[in-house]
């Protein structure tokens, strides 16, 4: 259109109306729940199968399992399920969102980019938490155990472990190429399942590996959860809490930077 033609056309200036933080959050939550929530039934089935695999499979490896061993195994299963979601399923979802352009689409929306992370944490927590009940149900069916729940601790630990796992998984997915992130997340599942003192005591591991696990988030997560599930048999120490919180903060900082940063 020529300058003259434009000059004769008068336009009312369009002023965008910013959405309130609450409205933006609710809209994004609705979006994310619809997109990711559709996976919820499938994920519960996967968690049930994984829990059955851990509890029945490890049970087969230990002949004449004692009540003490059964409790240790059973109280570790929910941690494995929560960390599997955070360290394996979350990175795969984020990597595929990066590859498809969905990640950048949402980053171009007029909402604080850190809100995208908060919404995802909420949705993945909602998806992961049923795993605790599923794991304990299968353990109870197999071993007929009596758990001594410390409910406030169990709820707190479940939330913290989920957020820690999801934050670290998210950080892996946003800081590496999608293919590499998917590969690492799959390796991490094996580490959590087979090489971490969750389903067996740390004393079974070589000394150097025990020391390594003291600073990784996996054992602290398991200890914290165990103290909430069988509070009469296990306890946690402040160090577990500190290590978990440090990993959570690290994951959140790396992820937030990747969301906000312009390349």
């Amino acid at each position, binding site marked *: *259109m*020529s300058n003259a033609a*434009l000059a004769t*056309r008068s*336009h*009312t*200036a*369009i*002023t*965008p*109306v*910013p*959405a309130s933080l609450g*409205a*933006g959050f*609710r*809209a*994004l939550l*609705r*979006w994310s729940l*619809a*997109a*990711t*929530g*559709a996976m919820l039934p499938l994920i519960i089935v996967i968690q049930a199968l994984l829990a059955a695999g851990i509890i029945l499979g490890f049970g087969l490896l230990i002949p004449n399992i004692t009540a003490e061993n059964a409790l240790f195994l059973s109280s570790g299963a929910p941690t494995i399920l929560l960390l599997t979601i955070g360290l394996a399923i979350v990175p795969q979802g984020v990597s595929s*969102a990066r590859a*498809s*352009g*969905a990640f*950048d*689409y*949402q*980053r*171009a*929306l*007029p*909402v*604080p*980019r850190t809100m995208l992370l908060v919404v995802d944490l909420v949705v993945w927590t909602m998806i992961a938490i049923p795993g605790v009940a599923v794991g304990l149900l299968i353990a109870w069916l197999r071993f007929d155990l009596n758990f001594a729940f410390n409910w406030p601790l169990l709820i707190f630990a479940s939330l913290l472990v989920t957020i820690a796992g999801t934050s670290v998984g998210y950080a892996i997915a946003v800081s590496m190429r999608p293919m590499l992130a998917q590969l690492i997340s799959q390796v991490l599942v094996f580490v959590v399942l087979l090489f971490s003192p969750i389903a067996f005591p740390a004393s079974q591991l070589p000394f150097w590996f025990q020391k390594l696990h003291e600073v990784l988030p996996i054992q602290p997560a398991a200890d914290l959860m165990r103290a909430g599930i069988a509070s009469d048999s296990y306890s946690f120490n402040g160090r577990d809490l500190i290590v978990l919180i440090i990993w959570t903060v690290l994951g959140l900082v790396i992820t937030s930077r990747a969301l906000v940063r*312009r*390349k």
Partner: protein
Amino acid sequence: MDNDDVLRITDLTRRFGKVVANNEVSLRVRPGEIVGLLGHNGAGKTTLVSQITGLLKPDAGDIQVGKIDAVRDPRAARRHVAVQPQEQAPIDGLTPRTAMEVAGRIRGLSVAKARATAIELAEELDIGPWLDQRALPEGGGLSGGIRRLTGFAMAIAAPTPLLILDEPTNDIDASRRRLLWQALRRRGDQGIGVLLVTHNVAEAERVVDELVIMDHGQVVATGTPAQLTGAQHTEMRLELQLPSLGGESFLKDMSFPTMRQVHSGRRRLITIAEDSAAEAIRWATAQRTTGNIEGFSLAPVTLEDSYLSLVSPTEAQNSTNTESRKNPQEFADV
């Protein structure tokens, strides 16, 4: 320069290693104006858009979105820009109705207004029958065209001063394409400034007010479609169909002046002055009789002819090998 520009880009430069994806690009979009950004794949269009939306940071230059410095304050700029990217909008798990409502809510519409807008947009774009059909992963549930229209509707769910659309008609059938262009024109008439990124010259010509043509990271031409088409249609295009490649030496013996020549497979597009038309017809008829050409046509030049002459190798620039002008920047459109 007007102070009410909704987008003003000045000398924008962005490099990827040694490749200059945007080289001192300048353009502007005024309220109510639809500006077409034309260019081949790899011309630097997507890099430009990514800098406006705060996904990439420029190496040099300015981006003003309204009164906002988008380089310094990308978050504030995002409130003034709605984007439909070239990739499909991520609506898996959502119905078009929910997707439009969510997009409206994110841009500040009330719940009631967002609901009403979704219904209005579904009518405007004729996607009513799919309004409550859920998009499923792997492209299931909704066709590519309905997904694309939903993405367009999400971008226009609430009015923003600047609207950026990247190939919005991909996958869309002809009748709904027309609806989309009409909807876009209406948004322009409401005062929204539109930056329309495309390589579909024929479609762009009908809808845009201004054109910016990019090639290898640089702006090579700007103007209205009429200006770019050339001397207000006083030029003509002689199109020759050759029987085979090679053996084109007869083209050197044309009995009338030519302005430019463009290769396109076995076609030669030759631009001539209007007053050479009669002589050109005589010459071409003689060439057809001798078998040098299979056929010819003569018509006013189109925007596509002008576009191709700006971004493609011409006879004068490259008489032997049309492939030799390929440039590493073709891979820079990230």
